[in-house]
């Protein structure tokens, strides 16, 4: 039954696709709700981040009385389960059945890559937290906007901070053996080695490694620090085991943007105090928008917002600003998309943001330190790098001529074992 209905739907859309688009564009904007699609993950191992994404969207819309640029919003939420094939079918449902005009999400890079060709062909504006470098670099999607960070955008900054401020010379890198981990570590290495540091070891545990004891035992005994760029719960588990082996006082751990997230911070215990990490956001940021955001999250969900909640919350703010500048006329997609990418939003919860010509955010990146404040563990901001682009301080064209960051690119010149 489902198959026939879907087949019928596909046939209809195939046949009248052009006509439909025409009708939609011509429809009067006044008073009609904006149809906003939201791809998230509410089941399966990635659900933690997906649930926080939903909290961010819900709160952002609630604060605006469910209105964007004077128009009511109808939100269509789809749970992809973090499975690319599902992401694709849910995206088709959102676009072809629910007629959404813009999509927030999806969460993971492999999900974003699974729908990219389809959403491009549909000219569907996508605002995702997926960090894969090439979506906004070598294989850009003109309909894509990212308000968070590319994989290496934040780790570049940590590379600079480790070399110049901390004066570290010898660092080991560890991350999940997936593109997200490779790209973050490569970005760190690129900047760190350009500033005179040496990456002496790289470790790549499989994404579903049951135990990190074996990797901790392999760590080079002469290290100034370890940079870890894990995703999901793995950073939490690695740090816990690292402390369990009594390594806590010996070598500092530096975290990538999802390694010491607010979502797991309270569970990490006092061992985490003093840990440094890099992110485009901290719940501790001292600006009016963030004060409202954190208070709202505390009131509604009793948690500090982290990477995922802030990602969608900021995305809605950026969406709202773009809609205002086109008087709410999301139906004129070209104009709306142009506004989305050229707008500067001075007052988001993460600070001021603007976008480069690839749709990737240019904004502040923060070095944060875990501290205990009022009984809770928080990521205090100790240094702000303003206006950071995904290309760091490198020349954009030269940067893009290199192959995309990977396990072995840039090549490691100082590996010891």
């Amino acid at each position, binding site marked *: 039954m489902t198959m026939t209905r879907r087949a019928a739907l596909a046939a209809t859309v195939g046949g009248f696709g052009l006509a439909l688009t025409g009708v939609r564009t011509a429809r009067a904007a006044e008073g009609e709700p904006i149809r906003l699609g939201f791809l998230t993950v509410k*089941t*399966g*191992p990635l*659900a*933690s*981040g*997906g*649930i926080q994404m939903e909290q961010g969207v819900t709160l952002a819309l609630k604060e605006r009385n469910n209105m964007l640029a004077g128009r009511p919003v109808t939100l269509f939420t789809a749970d992809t389960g973090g499975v690319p094939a599902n992401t694709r079918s849910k995206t088709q449902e959102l676009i072809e059945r629910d007629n959404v005009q813009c999509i927030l999400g999806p969460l993971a890079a492999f999900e974003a890559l699974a729908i990219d060709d389809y959403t491009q062909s549909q000219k569907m504006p996508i605002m995702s937290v997926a960090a894969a470098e090439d979506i906004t670099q070598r294989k850009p999607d003109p309909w894509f906007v990212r308000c968070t960070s590319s994989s290496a955008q934040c780790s570049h900054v940590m590379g600079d901070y480790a070399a110049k401020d901390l004066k570290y010379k010898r660092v080991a890198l560890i991350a999940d053996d997936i593109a997200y981990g490779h790209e973050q570590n490569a970005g760190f290495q690129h900047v760190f080695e350009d500033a005179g540091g040496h990456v002496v070891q790289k*470790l*790549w*545990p*499989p994404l*579903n*490694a*049951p*135990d990190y*004891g*074996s*990797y901790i*035992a*392999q760590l080079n005994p002469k290290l100034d620090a370890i940079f870890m760029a894990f995703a*999901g*719960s793995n950073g*939490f*588990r690695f740090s*816990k*085991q690292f402390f*369990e*082996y*009594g*390594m806590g006082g010996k070598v500092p751990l530096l975290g990538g943007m999802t390694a010491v997230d607010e*979502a*797991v911070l309270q*569970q*990490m*215990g006092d061992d985490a105090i003093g840990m440094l990490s890099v992110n485009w956001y901290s719940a501790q940021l001292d600006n009016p928008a963030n004060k409202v955001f954190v208070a709202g999250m505390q009131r509604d969900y009793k948690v500090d917002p982290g990477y995922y909640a802030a990602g969608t919350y900021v995305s809605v703010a950026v969406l709202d600003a773009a809609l205002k500048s086109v008087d709410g006329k999301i139906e004129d997609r070209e104009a709306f998309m142009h506004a989305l990418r050229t707008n500067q939003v001075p007052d988001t919860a993460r600070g001021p943001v603007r976008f480069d010509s690839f749709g990737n955010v240019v904004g502040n990146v923060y070095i944060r330190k875990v501290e205990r404040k009022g009984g809770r563990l928080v990521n205090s901001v100790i240094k702000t790098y303003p206006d950071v682009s995904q290309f760091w301080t490198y020349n954009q064209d030269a940067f893009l001529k290199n192959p995309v960051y990977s396990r072995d690119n840039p090549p490691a010149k100082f590996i010891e074992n």
Partner: protein
Amino acid sequence: MQFWLIQTLNSLALGGLLFLLSSGFSLIFGLLRIPNLAHGALFMLGAYLGATVLAQDLPFWLAVLVAGLVVGLGGVVVERLLLRRLAGNEQGQVLVTLGIAFILADLCLLAWGGDPIPLAAPSGMRRPLLLFGFAFPTYRLAVLVLALIVALLLYLLMERTRLGAMIRAGVDDREMARATGIRVSYLFGCVFFLGAALAGIGGVIGGPILSAYPGLDADMLPLALIVVILGGVGSLLGALVGSFIVGFLYNFGTAFFPDFAYVVLFLPMVLALGFKPEGLFGRVRT
């Protein structure tokens, strides 16, 4: 030298943990002839239940007891209400256990949320132990000792009690066991309780090392499969030896062949299936 010592201890500790995981899996596999694909989910449920008990400041042994009982009883319910109705339909039974695994995983997500929950080790074992100038987590050594105690208890149960004798008879030849008057139906209930309870206990004991998190089930199930296929289905000794082999392979494999961490882990299983399908110590062909 230090590297070898630490990796050896790591391997032994991981082996102990894997035995707690896979002994119950092996028991059920041996008697019912089906891999219980919900075993990883039962292990995860045990870890979450343990975390909840420990959060009330109750002692660690109580968390182990509660998780063992609750998960064990859950296993009995599944066996009585679902698997029994599909007796003889092994394919159906396997699919049902897979379905239960998915349901349990989402129920855990609903009940405990998506963020990882750490389990505290017993208070005396939180500091690392200093051995010959290097530190090793005390708790991991305790896991090894606990696993060996569980192995001994299981050995006594299987070899020295009437129930154990009946289970062994059931593993060797189910029809013949039934013909000699053993109530195989009662036996299935017992074995399912024991197997599931072991998974729950393993979840709590593994908790301080692994934490409870969504996906723990899917991370652990393949390891149980490798251990049991390598060691031999239904064989306690096989599960024990298999666990330590896999423990050593994982630790030294990831150190020496980091790019082939999973090949090193799965290759012995493939070889076992190809050349010795009954496993090292098994009496049943998988």
